[in-house]
């Protein structure tokens, strides 16, 4: 059993071991959907939501697979369940807020193939978190993801109006800013250790 407290799990997942900036998970949406603050916030919200749901599902599946002693089905069942969850969320969003659906565009379905979600499920299993720890972990990871996305979007909105040499514009500049952001997040190291 894992002894970490909720606040420790949250701080570690959100700041110290930020999924994007320290674990390199969810880089694709991080590079792809961080152009505008509004979309970034919505994407972050969507990812956090999916993370919470899939974390709960993963906890259930893991318990079930333990019971029937079939660990080799872990990966395949995680991905199937996450894919269906996202599908449901997508349908829900489409119905409830067409505007939001429009804004997230192709990215909602892509959350399925976002390694941050799957990574979360795998990590929580590896770390042996119980149900509430898992949910805290998911919430922390989602918040951290949203935070990274929002910070990046703020910087990029500003950089849209900078005299950046053409060869650097776009992905290169985003990666450099991400690198510096990742350095800045190193300041949080050790925060979650007491």
């Amino acid at each position, binding site marked *: 059993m894992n002894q970490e407290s909720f606040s420790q799990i949250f701080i570690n997942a959100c700041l110290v071991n930020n999924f994007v900036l320290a674990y390199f998970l969810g880089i694709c949406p991080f590079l792809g959907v961080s152009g505008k*603050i509004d979309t970034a916030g919505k994407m972050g919200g969507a990812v956090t939501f999916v993370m919470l749901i899939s974390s709960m599902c993963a906890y259930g599946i893991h318990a079930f697979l333990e019971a029937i002693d079939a660990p080799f089905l872990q990966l395949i069942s995680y991905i199937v369940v996450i894919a269906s969850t996202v599908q449901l969320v997508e349908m829900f969003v489409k119905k409830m807020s067409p505007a939001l659906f429009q804004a997230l565009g192709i990215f909602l379905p892509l959350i399925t193939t976002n390694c941050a979600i799957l990574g979360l499920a795998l990590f929580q299993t590896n770390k042996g978190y119980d149900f509430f720890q898992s949910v805290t972990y998911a919430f922390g990871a989602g918040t951290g993801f949203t935070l990274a996305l*929002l*910070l990046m979007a*703020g*910087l990029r*909105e*500003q*950089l849209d109006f*900078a*005299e*950046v*040499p053409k060869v*650097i514009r776009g992905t*290169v*500049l985003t990666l*450099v*800013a991400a690198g*510096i*952001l990742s*350095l*800045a*997040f*190193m*300041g*949080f*190291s*050790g*925060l979650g*250790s*007491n």
Partner: protein
Amino acid sequence: MLKQTLHISTSPHLVKGSSVEVIMRNVVWAMLPTAAFSVYAFGWNAALVLITSTLSCVLTEHVLCRLSGKRSTVSDWSAIITGLLLGLTLPPIFPLWMTFLGGVIAISVGKFLFGGLGYNVFNPALVGRAVLQGAFPVAITTWYDGFAADRFSSINSSLLAAPFMKPVVDGVSGATPLSAFKFDGVITDTADLAFGFVSGSAGETSAILILLGGIYLVTRNFMNWRIPVSILLTVFVLSGIFYWIDPSKYPSPLFMLFSGGLMLGAVFMATDMVASPITKWGVVLYGAIIGTFIVVIRIWGGLPEGVMYAILLGNAISPHIDRLIRYRVYGTSLKSS
């Protein structure tokens, strides 16, 4: 007869008189006492580090401008500030090749890539230092006691490490007040901190001289006083609350104020207007956020000092602050703007 050729310019035809170059030059003047004290305290070592970092920044700026076919912008003095500040944040026996590399990174990655003067979203000097700290964490936490007897007669071997090679440190390395506190629970005397009789980065030791430089800039209206005041006040109040709760566990607010890079950071680095918010209330919030990060990192974090990280995070948050805190446009209601 009247002259026929008249200049045509657009209104307003008056300007206030200060210019970017004047501001930048004055910031350099304001930093000189701090730089001079660091040479006094750490000898030729600090002098070499400061000269190298400044030269490397200026050189990089010049070369990059030339390479990209632009007019060289070194004459606006901003590269000199970046260089001096970088040097001031490094340990006084930091290997010169690393110092040089730091300058190159500060200007090329921290400034040029983002579009040069005015467009950098992070403080260039701190980008340089953050990369150095990430790359060479041992060298950048190898301190040196000030006022060594031989500081004007010999140069530390660490400084002269061959490029790309590990430095060999000679002599004892001193602990900074913050690492002494964090790792050994030792509190340094506040007067020593204020006057700079402690070990630390080249320019962070004398809080008083840094403050004087800041006061000069504020009176000449070259600096936004709200930023340092907001940072220092936040640090003081927050750490004061903890100290009041449990003085045996938490450091005193005065110790917090005068130790480490807080003064240098609050006065000269967080105030870099390029990477800070633009409105009066925006900078107050920015300062409060930086101050909070500093206290959190120092008290609960793994690292003894967090000023650099706090300011970089503050830089990253500034676009959001500018989005959130805007003035209400005249004649509009708050909601409609």
